[in-house]
């Protein structure tokens, strides 16, 4: 493998490791002290983007970066075992981080495709939700699990730790993965504006939240410290107050002895008893007169002690027999001020707590005490006050205990390894704890007060306000970024759609154009065909017209010449020949009738229908007027009901009635007066008219035939006719989009029905 190939293979890995490490270290700055709880872990976003961009091998880089960060915070080099045990969790946590990024990237590749960040409306949402909250379960679980196993996270706060870890990683992904991806995955180079639109608000939002966080965090720290300092001061003041009370009691006793050369037992008991009632912290007061032992050494035996109950064993005790007390006695004489002993085990007390005895020297009244010699010469004895250090300190501690503060008090000159008093559960303070050390002078001795708040307490009882602020801010930034990406993606989608639609539209337009051209051609074809059809129809009608017209000329000639011959022959014709000539004339007349019928038929087709509102009654009247003579001749009776006004050609409608009535008049039994009834009524959506007669009727099988052209059902001898009438009727009704039919029984008359559109 060449050096270049190695670099190409390892380079991305190192880039990712560096990116993870740097962003991780920067992320730690955002951790809420104490501890490492952070609301945003940018490194997780870098990791996801790294895997998406470089592929799965970036996982190694993530592992390396994460490992270095965790080792940095936890490495313990005190020994090989410690080193190993501090490295192992770091390796595991790093593994969790790497797996998380790999899984997140795999999810994204599987479901969305990470290149859709700027091009797909919901792409950003899916990418960030899969890579963020979904995948970030892994690192949080592995990391917190490891710390818990190692005992670095107490069981009760596992969930809190897990939650903060998960939020931190998720927000880190939601903010930083798009930031990196927007700039590394560039499907189209001209997308600078989109990249900037996506980046600037994200970065600005992030910085604003970080600034806000730093400010709030600092204020929170200052508040914590101030609270702690307040507690420390309170504690100290409380102790000082107790000590001052003790001193006051001793001063009172001192003044009792100063004013009286002889203080008897009753006097002492009464006075001291009253003092003790006022200052409950003082356990006992005693009078230890100065004396000389047999060997000449000084003694100070306890003569009076209040209260006596419980202190009987102390009576007669020579306080000079104890070197601890002697040191205080000497100091008391040397300074003339009250002197406290080092913590000591009281004779009379069974409790294991230490006591402290304060001695005040009493001198012979009126004698000089300016120099140590004079004071030694005139020493009369000591008054002593006994206090329980435990009582004093625990009383003071009780007031501040609630704030998680631990206290350890020790006499600096005394036994260092054993504290004077310590709060329950107070071990050693540790690094990172909030700590305050105060040295308090106590009647010539020094007590060291150590107060601290353990980190564990701070973590367990931290105010989540700051973290919530950070988390909410970051979440908002992340969601806002997501929203931006959605908007940008949407605009991209719309742009794309617009482009596509435009293309489609253009295509559709050209298709439409072609279609239009085609349909115009079709229309032109249809028009031409129509014209041709019309022309041929016209030709046909013209033909029928001319044919029938031309037929008339020879026919006329025939009859005219017959007439001429008859005229010429005059009287020379015998009656039989005259009958023959008559037959020719009558045949010619019939033929002329046929030809005229044909002409009428062809004219019907040729002339345009004039459809106007016409009164059917008027048309009927016109037909009756035309048939006046026939009506009179046959003595017919015509009845008609109410007849409507319809849209029709008045002339044709009259003709229709004329033909139908003519029919009814014609086909009658000999000698019968025709009775004809006409009605018209609205039937569904059309007018139904009927013309009923009392004529000879028609056989059912002939009903359908009789509307045919030149169809005649009777011989001329019975009923004359040209076979045109009903064909004309049918044509007229058809021209009006109606139907015509007849119902009949032979001998019972016929009813013709026809319809006209309403």
């Amino acid at each position: 493998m060449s050096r270049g190939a190695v670099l190409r293979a390892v380079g991305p890995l190192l880039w990712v490791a560096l990116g993870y490490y740097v962003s991780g270290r920067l992320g730690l700055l955002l951790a809420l002290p104490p501890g490492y709880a952070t609301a945003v872990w940018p490194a997780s976003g870098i990791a996801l983007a790294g895997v998406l961009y470089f592929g799965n091998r970036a996982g190694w880089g993530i592992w390396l970066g994460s490992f270095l960060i965790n080792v940095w915070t936890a490495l313990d080099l005190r020994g090989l075992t410690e080193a190993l045990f501090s490295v192992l969790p770091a390796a595991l946590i790093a593994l969790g981080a790497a797996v998380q990024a790999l899984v997140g990237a795999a999810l994204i590749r599987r479901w969305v495709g990470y290149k859709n960040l700027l091009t797909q409306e919901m792409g950003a949402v899916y990418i960030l939700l899969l890579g963020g909250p979904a995948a970030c379960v892994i690192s949080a679980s592995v990391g917190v699990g490891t710390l818990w196993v190692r005992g670095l996270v107490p069981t009760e706060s596992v969930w809190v730790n897990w939650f903060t870890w998960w939020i931190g990683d998720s927000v880190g992904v939601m903010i930083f993965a798009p930031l990196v991806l927007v700039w590394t995955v560039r499907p189209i180079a001209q997308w600078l504006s989109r990249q900037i639109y996506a980046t600037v608000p994200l970065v600005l939002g992030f910085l604003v939240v970080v600034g806000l966080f730093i400010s709030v965090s600092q204020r929170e720290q200052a508040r914590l410290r101030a609270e702690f300092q307040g507690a420390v001061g309170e504690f100290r003041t409380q102790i000082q107050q107790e000590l001052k009370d003790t001193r006051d009691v001793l001063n009172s006793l001192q003044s009792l002895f100063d004013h009286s050369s002889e203080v008897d037992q009753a006097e002492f008991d009464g006075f001291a008893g009253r003092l003790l009632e006022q200052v409950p912290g003082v356990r006992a007061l005693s009078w230890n007169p100065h004396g000389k032992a047999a060997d000449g050494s000084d003694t100070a035996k306890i003569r009076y002690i209040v209260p006596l109950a419980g202190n009987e064993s102390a009576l007669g005790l020579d306080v000079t027999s104890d070197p601890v007390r002697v040191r205080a006695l000497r100091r008391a004489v040397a300074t003339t001020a009250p002197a406290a002993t080092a913590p000591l085990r009281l004779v009379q007390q069974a409790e294991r707590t230490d006591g402290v005895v304060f001695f005040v020297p009493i001198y012979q009244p009126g004698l000089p005490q300016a120099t140590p010699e004079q004071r030694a010469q005139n020493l009369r004895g000591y008054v002593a006050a006994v206090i329980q250090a435990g009582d004093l300190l625990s009383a003071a501690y009780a007031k501040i205990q609630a704030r998680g503060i631990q206290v350890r008090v020790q006499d600096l000159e005394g036994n260092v390894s054993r504290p004077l008093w310590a709060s329950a559960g107070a071990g050693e303070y540790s690094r990172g704890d909030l700590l305050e050390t105060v040295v308090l002078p106590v009647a010539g001795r020094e007590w060291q007060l150590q107060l601290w708040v353990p980190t564990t307490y701070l973590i367990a009882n931290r105010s989540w306000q700051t973290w919530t602020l950070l988390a909410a801010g970051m979440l908002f930034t992340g969601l806002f970024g997501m929203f931006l990406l959605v908007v940008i993606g949407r605009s991209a989608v719309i742009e794309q759609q617009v482009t596509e639609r435009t293309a489609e539209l253009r295509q559709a337009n050209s298709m439409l154009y072609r279609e239009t051209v085609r349909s115009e051609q079709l229309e032109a074809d249809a028009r031409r065909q129509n014209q041709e059809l019309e022309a041929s129809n016209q030709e046909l009608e013209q033909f029928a017209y001319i044919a029938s017209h031309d037929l008339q000329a020879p026919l006329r000639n025939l009859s005219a010449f017959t007439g001429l011959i008859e005229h010429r022959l005059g009287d020379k014709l015998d009656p039989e020949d005259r009958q023959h000539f008559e037959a020719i004339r009558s045949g010619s007349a019939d033929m002329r009738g046929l030809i005229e019928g044909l002409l009428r038929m062809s004219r019907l087709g040729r002339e345009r229908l004039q459809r106007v509102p016409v009164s059917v009654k008027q048309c009927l009247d016109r037909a009756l007027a035309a048939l006046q003579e026939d009506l009179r001749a046959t003595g017919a009776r015509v009845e008609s009901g109410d007849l409507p006004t319809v849209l029709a050609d008045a002339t044709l409608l009259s003709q229709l009635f004329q033909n139908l009535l003519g029919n009814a008049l014609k086909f009658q039994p000999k000698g019968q007066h025709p009775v004809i009834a006409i009605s018209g009524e609205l039937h569904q959506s059309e007018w139904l008219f009927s013309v009923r007669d009392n004529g000879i009727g028609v056989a059912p099988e002939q009903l359908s035939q009789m509307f045919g052209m030149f169809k005649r059902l009777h011989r001329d001898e019975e009923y004359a006719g040209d076979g045109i009438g009903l064909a004309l009727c049918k044509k007229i009704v058809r021209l009006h989009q109606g139907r015509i039919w007849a119902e009949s029984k032979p001998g019972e008359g016929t009813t013709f029905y026809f319809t006209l559109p309403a």
Partner: protein
Amino acid sequence: METSAKPRKILLVDDNPADLYIAREALKASGVGLELTALAGGQEALRVLREAAQKTPGEVAMLVLLDLNMPVMDGEATLREIRKDPAIWLTPVVMLTTSSANHDVARCYAAGANAYICKPLLFNGMTQLFTDLDRFWSSHVLLSKTPPNLLPRMG
């Protein structure tokens, strides 16, 4: 003199020789003293009319009986030519034709026909027609002698 002498001549224009023959026979049979000139086409009719007008300007010499359906120049065209020519435009023209179609009747009157008659089918009808024509045109009809430019244009 405001009215002309009644035309004693009939100019029958028909392309059918049989019809001309029948007409001649019918006129003869009717006994009406009219002079009949039979012509086979419109152009001949126009020529004859114009010649007659040249000979006797201002005289309405003839009643024209004009068939409608004729080859070369049909009845309507002939009629329109007559009505366009100031020399002969006052000539009374009676259409005598086979068609009874409304549109034929209408177009002939529109072109300036004085009357429209369907050819009778029977020989007797034909003789009756000449009798009626003679009576009608000789006894009842007045014809104008006013110069044509003072009359409304027709057609």
